[in-house]
């Protein structure tokens, strides 16, 4: 049996429905109408120990709901889930001792006091032995570069600094499983990199299983080998990221620097635009490979310089969402 085993989980929320305007508001004051919103439906997957899985999907797809069910916060309407032989919402108190959770949009640190004080509180909540706590804390301080910020009241930290402290706070008890719900939201490029490198290292050194949601595809590509795509509450794709890339990454962009005139009518060249220094081509790799193209061109003209760019992962995701109509 896998480390995480999720079977046919469904969860429906009741949402009050009300048209805008005063008249409608008064009406709904007396009689409220509800609609059922299916947040997740029939979700199943399994994850092995030590994996990093990217859990992606557009806003409102059910990512956070799944994370909250898996971390024992929400109770699903139906379905089963066994993680480490425990059912999160049934064995909550016992189960959460072994997991760490970071919600990028919320804070677990006490606002008015330095992060280190919150750490001390967490030590007592998780009943971490003194020696182990000091070691883990030292390690986290070093790896997340917290020396200078750990003693400043949290309200005075920048978002990036705070997020590093948040992540440290979630890992003090050395969890086997880490949920990261949009951990890089609102961070700058450098902070994002720090967070990513850290998670990678953590997974490598401690074999921590990581489930990660993010809208920044760079997070996913740099961390996860496997992704689960969810849309409108259903699992749409579960598999390797590479496969997805190969399937959707069919267009490549080639810019050629040359002084010669290029006449090209190959199959697979979707467009050709003249630029100041040469030409920009868009090619379809299903019809013509890069080497074939270059072979062709270099026979005709002298190439001074060449740049090949592939489609960004963001575009792939847009295409993917379009394909699945989500």
């Amino acid at each position, binding site marked *: 049996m896998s480390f995480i085993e999720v079977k046919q989980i469904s969860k429906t*929320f009741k949402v009050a429905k009300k048209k805008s305007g005063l008249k409608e508001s008064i009406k709904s004051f007396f009689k409220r109408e509800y609609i059922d919103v299916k947040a997740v439906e029939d979700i199943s997957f399994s994850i092995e120990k030590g994996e990093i899985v990217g859990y992606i999907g557009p806003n409102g797809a059910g990512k*956070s709901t799944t994370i*909250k069910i898996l*971390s*024992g*916060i*929400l*109770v699903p309407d139906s379905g089963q889930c066994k993680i480490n032989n425990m059912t999160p*919402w049934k064995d*909550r*108190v*016992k189960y*959460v*001792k072994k*997991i760490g*959770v970071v*919600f990028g*949009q*919320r*804070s*677990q640190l*006490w*606002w*008015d*006091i330095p992060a280190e*004080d*919150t750490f*001390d*509180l967490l030590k*007592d*909540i*998780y*009943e971490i032995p003194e020696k182990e706590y000091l070691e883990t804390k030292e390690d986290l301080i070093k790896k997340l570069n917290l020396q200078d910020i750990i003693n400043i*009241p949290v309200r005075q930290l920048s978002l990036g600094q705070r997020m590093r402290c948040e992540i440290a706070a979630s890992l003090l008890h050395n969890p086997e499983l880490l949920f990261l719900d949009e951990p890089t939201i609102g961070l700058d490029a450098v902070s994002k990199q720090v967070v990513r490198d850290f998670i990678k290292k953590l997974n490598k050194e401690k074999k921590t299983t990581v489930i990660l949601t993010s809208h920044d595809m760079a997070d996913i590509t740099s961390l996860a080998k496997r992704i689960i795509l969810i849309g409108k509450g259903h699992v749409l794709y579960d598999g390797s990221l590479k496969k997805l890339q190969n399937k959707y990454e069919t267009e490549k962009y080639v810019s050629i620097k040359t002084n010669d005139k290029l006449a090209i009518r190959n199959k697979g060249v979707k467009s050709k635009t003249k630029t100041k220094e040469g030409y920009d081509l868009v090619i379809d790799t299903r019809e013509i490979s890069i080497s074939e193209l270059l072979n062709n061109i270099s026979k005709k003209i002298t190439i001074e310089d060449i740049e090949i760019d592939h489609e960004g992962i963001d575009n792939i995701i847009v295409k993917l969402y379009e394909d699945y109509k989500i």
Partner: protein
Amino acid sequence: MRAYLTYFKLKFISSLQYRTAAWAGIATQFFFGFVYIMVYVAFYESGGKNLPMELPQLVTYLWLNQSLLALVNQFSRDQELFKLIKEGGISYELTRPKNLYFMWYFKIIGQRLANVTLRFIPLVLVTSLLPDPFHFGLPASFVHFIFFILSLSLGTLLVTALSVFYPIVTLTTMSEKGIVNIIITIADILSGIVVPIPFFPKFLQIISSFLPFQYISDLPFRLYVGNVNLADGVFGMCIQLIWIIIFILIGNIMMNKNIKRVVVQGG
């Protein structure tokens, strides 16, 4: 247990950050103390008959009320918990390997103890130096003082057990206003914070004795000034204990029920 104590410690440290709030609280309590006392002095001097308390006893009662208000009142609710529920921070609370009811219980008691510690020392010091009729008097006897401490501790546990209900109810109603506000207003009146219980009309005193509210602060304060004899004090403390147990039991049951229906707000 240790985690709960640390909660208290952190609440205390957090509250220390807001010194101005503490000073403002002290000033308010002085002001209200003087106003109340002057009203009662006028009332006593105009020749009220069969009064249930002697004036110096009443003045001491009123100062106790003001200096310990932060500990025993109903109306100050722990805003942090409501914010947690309304804005979704509850997610983190539920990922802690602890009983949520007692986590909240100790957060509230920590907040109350922190608030009162900052306020009551200056009030007691200054008012015990004041001349009559504003003088804050000594306890009726040493035994009365011990009884006062005991029943005040129980009263604090009781008021906290009551206060935990509000966030628990909010877990499903999503707003702490409405019914909770009505209950709190009634509770404050019946706890003797506005008018001491002995000044209530007879029928209201009887009703009130069957409710938990007067056992929060009225009982300990009257023990201090010697308005309640020791035997009644012991009886009162037994009632305190019974209410505490009942409320903690019901609170836990409600919490376990409401946790299953939790909806996390704001995505």
